[in-house]
């Protein structure tokens, strides 16, 4: 069954969507979209490292993204620069360094477009295993830290005062962000991973009135985006990442009509 490249891409994509759904909700709630972008940009450096040292791509991306996250936290503590400037600094410099390293790796034929925008042809059985096992692990850990993470998202001091240890939850969540980027880079491409996190969650926000509903709708939105996006990609020979994100955008636009309705109902 997994012989067909399209089936492989579909199975991998659905795995990614199920994990980005809940994680994306936290990215929206905690206003971390630029943080996600920064980690994703640094992923290119991770990929080049993997090629240079014959290393597993997902693991390499995970390590580099985690290091970038730690550097960011240290810079925030030690400099007076605002957060967005630091994010921009790290995002673009790690992307630049990654591209420079690509230039040196002349002995390898690089599919830069595939890296930036995703490539369904490149999804192997191995990738599927990494996505589903890694994804299951990410979701399990997210479930374990859900209460402190969510409580501190609503109000840090309440969580801290009532003994939930929000700082630890935040640190673990940062690692989960690096992990989701590592496992989804092949599907969506590093420029569009944050879109996969944010757009289904934003769509879900428009049609939900409780956090759990938002998580569920976000997963459904992501799954639908992957299905619609991949079929479009197959039909019109477009890159998989942009097709999936465009499908997510389409669903987001549909969800706006729901808001309009509920606003009208109130009046």
């Amino acid at each position, binding site marked *: 069954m997994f012989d067909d490249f399209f089936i492989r891409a579909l199975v991998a994509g659905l795995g990614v969507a199920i994990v980005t759904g809940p994680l994306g909700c936290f990215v929206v*709630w905690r206003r971390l979209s630029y943080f996600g972008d920064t980690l994703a940009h640094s992923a290119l450096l991770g990929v080049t490292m993997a090629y240079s040292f014959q290393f597993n791509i997902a693991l390499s991306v995970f390590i580099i993204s985690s290091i970038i996250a730690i550097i960011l936290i240290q810079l925030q503590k030690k400099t007076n620069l605002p957060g967005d400037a630091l994010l921009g600094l790290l995002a673009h410099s790690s992307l630049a360094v990654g591209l420079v390293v690509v230039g040196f790796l002349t002995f390898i034929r690089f599919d830069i477009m595939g890296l930036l925008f995703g490539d369904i042809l490149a999804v192997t059985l191995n990738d599927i295993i990494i996505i589903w096992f890694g994804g299951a692990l990410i979701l399990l850990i997210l479930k374990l830290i859900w*209460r402190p993470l*969510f*409580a501190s*998202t*609503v*109000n840090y*001091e*309440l*969580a*801290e*005062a*009532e*003994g*939930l240890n929000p700082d630890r939850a935040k640190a673990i969540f940062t690692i989960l962000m690096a992990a989701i980027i590592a496992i989804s880079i092949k599907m969506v491409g590093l420029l569009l991973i944050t879109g996969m996190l944010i757009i289904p969650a934003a769509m879900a*926000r428009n049609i*939900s*009135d*409780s*956090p*759990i*509903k*938002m998580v569920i709708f976000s997963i459904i939105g992501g799954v639908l985006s992957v299905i619609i996006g991949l079929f479009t990609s197959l039909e019109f020979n477009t890159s998989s990442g942009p097709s999936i994100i465009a499908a997510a955008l389409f669903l987001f636009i549909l969800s706006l009509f729901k808001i309009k309705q509920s606003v009208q109902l109130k009046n």
Partner: protein
Amino acid sequence: MNDNILVKLKNAGFRIKNKWLVQSVSFQVEKGKIVTLIGPNGSGKSTTAKIALGIFKKIEGEVEKYTNKVGYVPQKISIDWTLPLRVSDFMVLTENIKNEDIDEALSLTGVIHLKNKNLGSLSGGEFQRVLLARAISKKPELLVLDEPVQGVDFTGEIALYELIKKISDELNCGILLISHDLHTVMSATDHVVCLNGHVCCSGSPIDVARNNEYKALFGEQASKTLAIYEHKHDHTHSNDGEIKKN
């Protein structure tokens, strides 16, 4: 050690860079007792509460907390209203609570009808009642209430203070209360700590009321307020409001 102690501050203080928000504060909260912090604006009341709760970690002095069953009503709460959060979701924010306990707490503070409303749609007073309901529904051992009735209407205010007193008796929990309302609070308070950047005086309400530093801080009138409530039985009032000892 006294088993009844829930939290104990020993010469505790907190500063941001070189500015002390509060320093050398010592008191303890015991089971079934209400300790009230009073003091003018900026005197370090909320800071002291946060030290007691362990929110501020780099403090001077010592704080010993003997319980993790804590209910907290902060003075200011900034919640991002873009979160889809109903009152019922907010009630279980830090702990799973049985549905009937949620209903009971919301009924006690008079907001059961708002259970399925979005948190962002509540008025200030309604939200304050929800905050209090959330804190008591956990059946905590220690309740920290930082101006818990701000924005609540006058009749509600009295009812909520009575509720707080009742909860202290029923759950046998210790309460650390911050309030500006000397009238309603003092009748129920066991121990008063008067702050002004440091502890300017502390003790039973009557002791504090007699203290000269307290009078300097709050004026003669406030001193009488405290005395009236503590010693209803041993004095009368003349027409001009002067206290006459029996």
